[in-house]
């Protein structure tokens, strides 16, 4: 399939999702999907954001040391963490963990013709399978970004205090002075954008998977790679809109 046909297919898929979202929504699936997307990817989001925070502190400390302002490390950790890294980490890890699981599940259902079976029973597969995932993403992704924010600054704080010997009062004071609520809010918005992108791409790849186990593998792989690429491209535009 050529790229243009692929984009057309994707557009049709988006239209179907929008149409299905107006119809009947399967509320009882939302909780299970929220568990799958939120709780399953929580440990790796915490782990990765904590280690991103440590490195932000190390890099910020050494960057500002050369211009004589090593006490500015708090600003660096909080601004780089809240504005860019925490939303990206939450998005990418949800993509790697839940996005690939969604794509693999839907692709398995597709090759076993379970999706066709749903349609035969006059259950709209998009409304039944995909819309609950979207609602779950809208609920869980901002929460994951908040948790990533917390662990980013938390680990940055401990590295700054115990490894780099920065005063803890200065660190926290800098964060309070230079971080605004809009930084957190835009971070949450970014996380939401990434989550919706990943969910759409993963569902599309799963629904259009090729035959056999190879098809499932390829669909999973594509879901993760295309999802991450789209997220980071979108990140630029969101940043350009709000900070430019």
């Amino acid at each position, binding site marked *: 399939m050529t790229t243009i046909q692929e984009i057309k297919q994707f557009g049709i898929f988006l239209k179907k999702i929008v149409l299905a979202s107006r119809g009947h929504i399967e509320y009882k699936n939302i909780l299970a999907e929220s568990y799958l997307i939120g709780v399953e990817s929580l440990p790796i989001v915490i782990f990765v954001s904590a*280690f991103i925070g440590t490195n932000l502190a190390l890099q910020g400390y050494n960057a500002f040391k050369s211009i004589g302002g090593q006490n500015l490390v708090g600003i660096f950790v909080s601004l780089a963490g809240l504005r860019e890294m925490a939303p990206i980490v939450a998005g990418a890890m949800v993509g790697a963990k839940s996005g690939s*699981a969604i794509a693999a599940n839907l692709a398995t259902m597709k090759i076993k013709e379970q999706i066709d079976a749903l349609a035969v029973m006059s259950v709209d597969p998009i409304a039944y399978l995909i819309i609950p995932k979207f609602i779950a993403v809208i609920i869980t992704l901002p929460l994951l970004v908040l948790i990533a924010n917390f662990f980013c600054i938390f680990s940055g704080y401990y590295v700054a205090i115990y490894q780099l010997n920065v005063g803890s009062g200065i660190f926290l004071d800098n964060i309070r002075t230079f971080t605004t609520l809009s930084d957190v809010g835009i971070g949450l918005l970014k996380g939401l954008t990434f989550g919706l992108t990943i969910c759409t791409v993963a569902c599309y790849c799963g629904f259009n998977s090729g035959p056999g186990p190879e098809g499932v593998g390829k669909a999973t792989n594509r879901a993760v790679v295309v999802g991450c690429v789209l997220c980071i*491209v979108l*990140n630029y535009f969101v940043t350009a809109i709000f900070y430019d």
Partner: protein
Amino acid sequence: MGSFHVFLLDSFTTLLKKPLYLSEILHETSSITLQCLLPVAIVLTPFGMVVALQGFNIFKIFGTEYMVSGLTFISLVRELSPGVTSIMIAAQAGSSISAELGAMRVKEEIDALEVMSINSLKYLIIPKILGLSFACVIVNMISLMCGILGGYIVAVVMKGQSSGVYWDNLFIFASWFDPLFCSLKAFLYGLIIASLSSYYGYNVQGGAREVGIAVNRSVVNSILAFIFLNYFLTTLFFNIVQL
């Protein structure tokens, strides 16, 4: 954990024995490089753009906009380029390695190789591990250039900085040691990704569903492993620089 170390030890001891299957290694390197080049380039260019944009807004407060290119380069070379490249390679090449090996294990092709008295570790695993590590270094260098190009697009094309200022200040914060350490990081992350993915793929038991689980696990665990290592490598880097 234990069986992973046994796997690593076995791979390492077979590496020392002849023959080396050099053509396999070269083939894997080139195919993984080509496979990962496009996604990594598409990802790193916007990353460079974002760093330049945020840097521009912050440096404007102090009136030192000329530092933007230096900031872009240093943040790319120290953290973003090896880190993001490795995440994309884990998602793209690592997952395909474990899917391929898993499918071979499920279809008993690895046992068939053993029956023909071909050492499967030697013939399948070593070329993949070394190939992915070399490919990681190559792709990392290219992605670094893409990131610098992204910074150039923002600073020069969109913000109207003169291009001479951009190129002149590119290395103001960096030293010759930075690109070297960047390549070392990429090589180590490549080793981690490749050995974990081939471990999970090689030890699949069952059918198509288990292959899917192995693929997911290899991507997630290799990202976790190298992000963990990243902290210690960065600490080591700054300790070496201070000497």
